[in-house]
């Protein structure tokens, strides 16, 4: 049974004037324990919205449809009410700007221990011991739990944010651009830490990022999102070596490789507006292999290998 499964997840936002923005348009994901899935896409593709929906953290202007299954049980069915008991105890999150994820006037340890107390897992002295353990786990001395966030460097704060996410021993970890704004070396440290933790603790992790190479190196699986839909999912190897969707291939072509020799090509055009209905394939105007049905028919879901899925009219790879 999957640690986390998302089935046909949709998110809409109310816009002024009674209009709607269909930010997430039916995505499916599945993760086994110990798997790391990279959720990749350009800004505005709905990747952050999707994981906020999995945590039930969307604003009241949002409406949601679909299922979010944790170990087989749907936690989304009752909205916020059924979500809340699972937050942090079963599914936790590392936010993008660790800089701002901590309350500046409370100690780091206090904020790590907070969910422990809330969930009745530990309190007082036990909570302190557990907090120290958690900090040690991410490579910070446990004595530093009495420090304030501003006394931590950016990298340390991100580590502490990871420790905080692990406090209640969740089975699923969602990480939203955990290394953006960090230096290359610190980024490498954080990625190494996330990989080690998922391996050791059997966590299932969704890593949201715009950086394809990062996913290639840190994740076992990847899902490429475009305009609120999943263009392609599969293992990172499958996506790199045998992409089924032209968007996946073109994203790789647009990414310079340190030792690569192939020409780097940008993708012309811009993503479509999500506040208007899309006809056919949303990527069609930018696609270098678009043909007849792409402009008129929504691409079907196709699969070659088990677990390697795409939404594209092309048969036989991109």
């Amino acid at each position, binding site marked *: 049974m999957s640690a986390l499964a998302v089935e046909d997840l949709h998110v809409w936002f109310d816009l002024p004037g009674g209009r709607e923005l269909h930010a997430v348009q039916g995505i499916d994901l599945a993760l086994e324990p110990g798997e790391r899935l990279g959720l990749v896409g350009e800004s505005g593709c709905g990747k952050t919205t999707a994981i906020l929906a999995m945590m039930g953290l969307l604003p009241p202007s949002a409406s949601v449809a679909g299922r979010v299954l944790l170990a087989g049980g749907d936690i989304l069915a009752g909205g916020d009410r059924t979500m809340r008991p699972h937050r942090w105890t079963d599914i936790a999150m590392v*936010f993008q700007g660790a800089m701002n994820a901590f309350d500046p006037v*409370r100690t780091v340890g206090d904020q790590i221990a907070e969910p422990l107390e809330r969930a009745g897992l530990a309190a007082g002295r036990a909570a302190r011991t557990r907090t120290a353990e958690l900090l040690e786990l991410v490579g910070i001395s446990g004595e530093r739990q009495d420090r304030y966030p*501003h006394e931590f460097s950016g990298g340390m704060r991100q580590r502490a944010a990871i420790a*905080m996410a692990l406090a209640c021993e969740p089975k699923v970890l969602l990480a939203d651009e955990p290394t953006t704004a960090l230096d290359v070396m610190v980024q490498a440290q954080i990625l190494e830490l996330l990989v080690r933790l998922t391996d050791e603790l059997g966590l299932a992790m969704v890593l949201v990022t715009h950086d394809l190479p990062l996913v290639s190196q840190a994740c076992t699986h990847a899902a490429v999102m475009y305009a609120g839909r999943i263009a392609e999912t599969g293992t990172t190897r499958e996506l790199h070596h045998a992409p089924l969707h032209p968007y996946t291939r073109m994203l790789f072509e647009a990414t310079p490789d340190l030792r690569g020799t192939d020409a780097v090509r940008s993708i012309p055009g811009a993503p479509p507006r999500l506040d208007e209905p899309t006809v056919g394939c949303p990527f069609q105007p930018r696609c270098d292999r678009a043909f007849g049905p792409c402009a008129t028919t929504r691409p079907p879901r196709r699969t070659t290998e088990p677990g390697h899925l795409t939404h594209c009219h092309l048969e036989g790879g991109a």
Partner: protein
Amino acid sequence: MRAGWSYVGRRALFALITILVAISLNFVLFRLAPGDRTSALRCQGCTQEFKAQVRAEFGLDRSVPEQYLVYVKETATGNLGRSFVTQQPVLAELWKPVRNTIPMVLLGTLFAISLGLTLGVVSAWRRGTITDRTSVWSGLLLYSLPTQWLALMLIFYAAGPLGLPTSDIADPYLAYENPGWWPELVDRLQHMVLPAATIGLVLFGEYTLITRSSMLEALGEDYILTARAKGLSNWQIVRRHALRNSLLPIVTLIFLSLGFILGGAILIETVFNYPGIGLQLYESVTERDYPMLQGGFLLLTVSVILMNFLADLLYFRLDPRVTE
């Protein structure tokens, strides 16, 4: 914590320098007035004897810089001169009314803080609801009322129905009856109610608005989203994270508004004929008792400076980031 103590030290130094600046400004302002301290224009009813005494005390026959030094020295030792009206030392003359003002202002301010903060927090929490709108509009309205006019309105429309006295600090007949401390205290409090209520209402409006927007700013911060992700309830989020963060700017503003409160006290005490520092200043103005005016101004300025220093200290306690 050493960095912290140097912060406290620097704020203390700043307060000291500011007091010196205030003393100097006080000297300059009153030097700019026509005539010297004892001229007929400014000290009409003064006897020659009294004038000579003042002249000697403040070295008025010497050069201006020397006069300044004498003034600073005399001020530092607590000599603010003598009242032209009573010919008593200014400091002692000021002390009596100050004693009357403090409890009144304190009562009003505490009322405003407790109610304003509560309503501001509730209002931010219930943003957009009827509760929120009501408190914003009532806050705006109270904040916009001229203090002296609100006081007059209370006399017109509240004093009668509530049976509260509208003038002075105590019932003059009570002194002859000598009924004991309890009725006297009640009488004092009754005289205090309307002035304190005026201060309280005006400040209450301001504090509600400030607290609300400060709270709203805090609620938009990322750590609130983190707290929500951690499964905290709304009440826990407010109590553990939003409140303390939103209090930081409020503390400063409350202490900074002391100057405003003192200004308000002048107006209120004038309306209610309440013998506090404000009424004393008002009378000094009408009677052209310059030493008293000068002394009162200095006293009020210094108390604002000290309050600011207190705010700095409190800020230091509340915000761990304050070290630099």
